[in-house]
């Protein structure tokens, strides 16, 4: 029995070691590729005059689709902010997804909307549209409000895709604050790509403690709330050191639902957003990519590192837990829906690298981590652990995490220099030191809960309560 246990622990240790080395190496490789891509992007765009897009007849039309559900408190300000975006051929489609509050009435009153006879091509199925509204005033000419029965975010976005008339569709969360030139920057990869660009994503930044004035970002600050600050670290690592690298390697599987720009024709042709998953943003990208590959068409999915979209991060464990739980379920659902890609050379880098990465290091990482912990506790009960090795390994994992977080702070500093105060750098360093002790265990737990909820067939989004931005209004 003892020998069998020893043999098991020997091989299991090797499996864990290989897993750890693989995950750490992939993070480092991604960071390296991201750094090169970031430098290259900055150099290429040093010559870009985005104002040229504003005046050019070659500029493609963009429809910005913003689903709104029970957003009565902020909808007027949010739409005002969207209306002020710099883009010449812009249409803003706000979809009221059957709100129970007076979201629609607020829009009607503030923008003087009236019901119009708008014919749209219902190529994607969604819950019935009750009416489409447009303002009586030409200054709000860009605004179109769709009122429909409640069907969830994916359903609202699908109705927006049907109604939209632009060549490209930007899907956003209505409560995000976009930088004024966000669309100008996002549309460029579509125009400069030799192959057909089907989707472009940008960096999502955390706006907690930032100063927002009349829907515009006025001052950037590191959040005072520690939980939000940990998320700043996570977002920097994920976007600047992860997605940038995947984009360069042509293996990007996720464009955040908070802000992404899509080739509308392809998004509609492959069926739009899937209602059956809570990870509809990732699922759409995977489906669009497989659609193009299966048709043998050359295409690109790009990611740009500019800080274009600012969002409020959850500032309580309860809300953050729900969000991470949902993200995990969305990942699992998407991976299972597209399991044919797993190590399938037909899907090139997507099948051979991106999908396995997400499978092993995004889906299974919390499972492996918890399994390792249980295994260690069992060994401890049997008095088998080699304690010096245990502490040394823990130390190496912590040192690695710290190194990656410090690299993220450096990336942030050298790319877009968002946090200009010394105080902010200090806050980020403190967050980097504390995160592995106080935040990471919770993230693992939420990941496990996501797995368990998935097994139990839970499909809900979970309520996302927000405390609101640090807003100031002009006198």
């Amino acid at each position, binding site marked *: 029995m003892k020998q069998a246990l020893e043999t098991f622990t020997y091989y299991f240790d090797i499996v864990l070691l290989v897993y750890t080395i693989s995950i750490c190496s992939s993070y480092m490789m991604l960071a390296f590729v991201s750094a090169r891509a970031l430098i290259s992007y900055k150099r290429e765009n*040093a*010559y870009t005059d985005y104002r040229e897009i504003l005046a050019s*007849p070659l500029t493609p039309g963009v429809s910005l689709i913003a689903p709104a559900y029970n957003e009565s408190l902020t909808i007027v300000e949010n739409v005002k902010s969207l209306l002020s975006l710099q883009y010449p051929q812009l249409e803003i489609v706000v979809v009221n997804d059957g709100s129970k509050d007076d979201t629609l009435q607020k829009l009607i009153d503030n923008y003087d909307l009236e019901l*119009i006879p708008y*014919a749209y091509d219902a190529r994607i199925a969604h819950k019935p549209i009750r009416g489409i509204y447009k303002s009586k005033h030409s200054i709000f000419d860009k605004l179109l409000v769709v009122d429909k029965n409640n069907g969830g975010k994916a359903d609202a976005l699908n109705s927006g895709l049907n109604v939209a008339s632009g060549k490209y569709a930007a899907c956003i969360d209505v409560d995000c604050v976009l930088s004024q030139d966000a669309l100008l920057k996002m549309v460029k990869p579509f125009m400069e790509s030799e192959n057909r660009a089907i989707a472009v994503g940008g960096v999502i930044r955390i706006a907690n403690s930032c100063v927002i004035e009349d829907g515009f970002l006025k001052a950037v600050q590191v959040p005072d709330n520690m939980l939000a600050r940990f998320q700043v670290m996570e977002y920097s690592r994920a976007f600047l050191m992860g997605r940038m690298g995947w984009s360069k390697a042509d293996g990007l599987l996720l464009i955040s639902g908070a802000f992404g720009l899509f080739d509308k024709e392809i998004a509609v042709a492959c069926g739009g957003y899937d209602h059956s998953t809570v990870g509809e943003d990732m699922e759409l990208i995977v489906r669009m990519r497989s659609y193009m590959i299966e048709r043998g068409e050359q295409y690109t999915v790009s990611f740009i590192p500019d800080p274009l979209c600012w969002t409020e991060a959850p500032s309580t464990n309860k809300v953050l837990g729900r969000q991470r739980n949902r993200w995990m379920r969305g990942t699992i659902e998407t991976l299972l829906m597209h399991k044919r890609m797993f190590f399938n050379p037909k899907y090139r880098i997507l099948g051979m690298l991106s999908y396995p990465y997400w499978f092993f290091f995004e889906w299974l990482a919390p499972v492996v981590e918890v399994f390792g912990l249980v295994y260690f506790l069992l060994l401890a009960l049997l008095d088998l652990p080699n304690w010096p090795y245990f502490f040394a*390994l823990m130390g*190496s994992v912590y040192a690695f995490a710290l190194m990656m977080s410090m690299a993220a702070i450096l990336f942030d500093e050298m790319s877009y220099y968002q946090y200009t105060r010394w105080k902010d750098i200090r806050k980020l360093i403190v967050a980097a030191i504390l995160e592995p002790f106080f935040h990471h265990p919770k993230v693992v737990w939420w990941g496990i809960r996501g797995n368990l909820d998935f097994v139990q067939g839970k499909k809900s989004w979970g309520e996302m309560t927000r405390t609101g931005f640090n807003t100031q209004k002009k006198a």
Partner: protein
Amino acid sequence: MNPVDNVAIFSTYLQHQYGNGMLFIFWLIFTFLFLALIFLALTILSRIAKMADDRFEKQLAALYEPFLLKLLYESDDFIENPKIPHEIASRLRTRFQKQTFTNLIVKLNKGLDGELSLKLRTLYRVLKLEAFSISKLHAKVWHIQASGIDELREMRIVETVEYIQKLLNHPNWLVRSNAQLAVLELGNPDNRLRLFESITFPLTDWEQLRLHESLKSRNEDKINSFSSLFHSANQSIAVFGIRMSSFFGCTNDIPDLQALSSHPREHLREEAILGLMRLGDFQMQEILADQFGLETQVVQLAIMQYLLQTGYDRLSFYSSALLLNKHEISLLAAKGLARFDSDNFPADYEHLGLNQPVIAAILAHAADRRLQRI
């Protein structure tokens, strides 16, 4: 005892006590922590460097601005008799100094024209910054080549066009794009379009946009035809030519565009028809209306836009197009119908949509003139 000795002793102890595995982990921790410190130091240094850059820029501005202002607005004979103060010339020894000053005058020159620009360009030459920019064309790194081309273009150094021409098919798109702009702007004004004969890479929409903006900003009046590009083997150049022809109102090109409207390539047909539409040519109405039924959906849409824009008035054509069940085409067809009898529209045509709520909705949409598709 120095820290290196301490580390060596500790490693030996670990190796003896726990074996090579532990030693490996120790070095791993050491490396990660060391790198974390390096990244932290780089972050702090980067911040300090940014602050130093700001200070340096202010210092340079304080040094160069009075000289440049005097040069631009007071010095009347600088072009004939250029004299550079020693304190300026002596500060341009290193590459960094040259680059900083070049950036400054290139940026300044962007907003200037006429004599003021000529003075800056003279200064650029006298200080041998032109040679500095030319030397960048031979750099091995693409972004340095791209910046060299940009500087020479901005400072309008016509003599360098031959060097730049060699970079028109550079593997890096930015070098190519900057070279295209430079050759277009610096090349022989009587034959600007010749540059397109040398381009083998496809022109992306972004490159086309930059070229168009360049042509526009120079108030180009020497190009009254782009037809020489229409039959380029590089399809993207033909598309660019068609687009420019219509944007610059080259009515001379109408016969060539008419011929292209039946070209075997779908994209060229589409662009040619849209080009004719923008030029206001209405001679193709009947031909294109007849061609409509045989066309792909993309070209059908272009034809429908053309016919609407040019005021085509065959009611039966719009009626049958309305019933095609292709949303965008039906919508345009309904807008075509709306023009015939706007007072009674859509009532007069509602019978077409008998039992078809989609058609009825499209007719109602077309009746509302505010509803524009982007």
